């Protein structure tokens, strides 16, 4: 066991830190110090500028191969980058559904041509990807989706409706599952498609989220033609292709410990500003310990991944369920404690209130925590279905 960083890793961290400090200041200054939320139309455009700054200096996708715009960084370096990213107070990545959810799937299932076509433009924030998992009657029960793909000459025709596509109204492309075998049921007969949102027959309608941002969209598809190379992985095998991505969404990549360590540091500051009385002290300490434990759990997971072969990805399997349970409940707890500390001021529409509302989505999205508990019980503990 060695819980220290190498001098190369320290250097990588230092480089990231100074780049972030300098460039964040520049980006904010360019918008008069008042950047809007990335989930509003105006803010999204501002955040795209930030994405392009990251890409320009090869910080957008540090763990990707250099050919696609990355640095070929190790998982350790990726963790360090994320920690610095959140510590610096850098904004949520509006490209995250592409780079964290779709990209791992493209790396695993894409043809060389698909990789070359998709990944560099994604890294550069030229193509902006949103996810098309849920449908009005297929939320937690993803396998009950009814959007369909009909085989035609040299391609497919897509029909149906997707919903809850985060930032869908601002994106250029959608990835999602469609039923390609009309006689199939549940998990069988689905295919994973990549769909440009400017294709004929696509309509996107944005709608409002709890935190006031217009961050969701419904996507309606009517007779939308896509060519054969819009299929990722094999036809009718979309479920297993998607599950790889879902594993990423639930797992390590989307929720790096850095985010919670940064929130905890802010929470401790808030507690001190309020006079540091005894009433909420245990909650604050508990928050710190839980965030710290998340960091340690992640270090153990990354060690296992790194030693299991692929240092770039690999799978953490059903363990990602307990991971998600922990961080999503931690996030709610940290923000509740903050609201408690703010007392009457907590009713104001400030960063903690926003953060609280966002945190509340944690136990819902990417597989509800109820589903995660069932997965953990069945796959990790071996309880009967």
């Amino acid at each position, binding site marked *: 066991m060695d819980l220290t960083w190498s001098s190369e890793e320290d250097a990588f961290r230092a480089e990231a830190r100074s780049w972030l400090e300098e460039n964040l200041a520049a980006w904010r200054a360019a918008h008069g110090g008042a950047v809007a939320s990335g989930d509003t139309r105006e803010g999204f455009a501002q955040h795209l500028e930030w994405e392009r700054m990251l890409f320009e200096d090869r910080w957008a996708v540090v763990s990707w191969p250099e050919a696609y715009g990355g640095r070929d960084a190790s998982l350790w370096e990726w963790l360090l980058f994320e920690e610095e990213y959140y510590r610096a107070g850098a904004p949520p990545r509006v490209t995250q559904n592409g780079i964290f959810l779709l990209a791992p799937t493209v790396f695993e299932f894409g043809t060389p041509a698909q990789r070359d076509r998709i990944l560099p433009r994604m890294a550069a924030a030229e193509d902006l990807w949103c996810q098309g998992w849920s449908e009005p009657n297929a939320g937690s029960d993803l396998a*009950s989706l009814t959007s369909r793909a009909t085989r035609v000459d040299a391609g497919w025709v897509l029909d149906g409706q997707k919903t809850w596509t985060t930032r869908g109204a601002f994106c250029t492309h959608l990835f999602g599952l469609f039923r390609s075998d009309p006689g199939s049921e549940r998990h069988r007969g689905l295919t994973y498609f990549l769909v440009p949102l400017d294709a004929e027959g696509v309509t996107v309608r944005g709608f*409002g989220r709890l935190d006031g*941002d217009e961050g969701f969209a419904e996507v309606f598809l009517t007779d939308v033609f896509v060519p054969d190379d819009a299929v990722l992985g094999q036809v009718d095998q979309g479920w297993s292709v998607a599950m790889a991505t879902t594993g990423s969404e639930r797992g390590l990549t989307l929720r790096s410990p850095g985010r919670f360590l940064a929130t905890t540091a802010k929470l401790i500051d808030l507690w001190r500003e309020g006079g540091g009385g005894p009433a909420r002290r245990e909650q604050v300490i508990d928050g710190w310990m839980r965030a710290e434990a998340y960091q340690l759990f992640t270090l153990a997971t990354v060690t296992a991944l790194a030693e299991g072969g692929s240092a770039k990805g690999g799978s953490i399997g059903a363990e990602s369920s307990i991971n998600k349970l922990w961080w999503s409940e931690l996030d709610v707890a940290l923000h509740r404690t903050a609201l408690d500390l703010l*007392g009457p*001021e907590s*009713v*104001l*529409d400030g960063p903690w209130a926003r953060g609280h509302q966002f945190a509340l989505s944690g136990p*819902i999205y990417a597989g*509800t925590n109820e589903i995660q508990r069932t997965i953990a019980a069945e796959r990790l503990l071996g309880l009967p279905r």
Partner: protein
Amino acid sequence: MRFAFTEDQLFFRDAVRDLLDKECGPDVVRGAWPAGPAGAGARSPAARVEAVWSRLADMGALAVALPAVGDGLGLGPLDWVLLAEETGYAALPHPFVETACVAAPLGVAAGRVATDLAGAVVPFAAGADTFLLRRGGELVTVAAAEAQVSPVAAVDGALAAARVQAGTTGGRVVAANEDVERAFDRGVLGTAAQLVGLSQRMLDLTVAYVRERRQFGVPVGSFQAVKHRLADALVHLSFARPAVHRAAWSITHDRPERGRDTSMAKAMASDAAREVGAAALQCHGAIGYTVEYDLHLYLKRSWALAAAWGDAGWHRDRVGHAIGV
């Protein structure tokens, strides 16, 4: 010993409930939100929002506690606590508690009242006619036009909150000393009752949703995890409610335990609203997270009221002092 309301009290409660059910649906609450994506969804025009207040006045619901001269009925908290619960259930976008529960017993009948007894962020300040403000050990009323009102953006868009400043002179002194604390306790009680009503609304909405919504071929409400979470929400609500009703009795009879009982009511109602609200959101899933669905109207009001008039921690502390802990 009789822990129950009178038929008259229940009858008045039912009348207010019917009125609000017809006249103060979610579209009316949303009508009180500023226009924009955060208030998206079916909205009633401003006139309908205003009409609810007039109708409540017409039926006498605002004058229950006004001294028994003119329109006043001169009644006490036991007579209005259930009405407060109903206004909570409806997320009424008007200062019922401030006007009818806090100010009226002081003889203040000057339109809509907002007050800084609730805290430095004053709910419903934007549309208030009169402010009831702390000054030293006294409460004074100040006409809205004579106060500096600085609106603030609250999470609950219908809260119309502001910070309010008035000079150190002027206005009418309406309470002093112990009566200030009595006024505060009435506000705490009314708010606790609204939180109980809000919790009931969130639970009702959720029960209706999970009975209909199907996933995995069955109603979501048939899953044990959903049942148990909502049963726990019901338990929280069911034990907060009698605490609120008891506080109404303690205030009505100006019992020595008045402050303790009122604070217990607010602490328990705030905690219950948090539990019920979290359960409601979780059991809805993604739709609960959208502003076009109604849940957020009640959820955000419950957050606002849980933090106003002293939050759970503040009131728990007050209970502790009262019981020697």
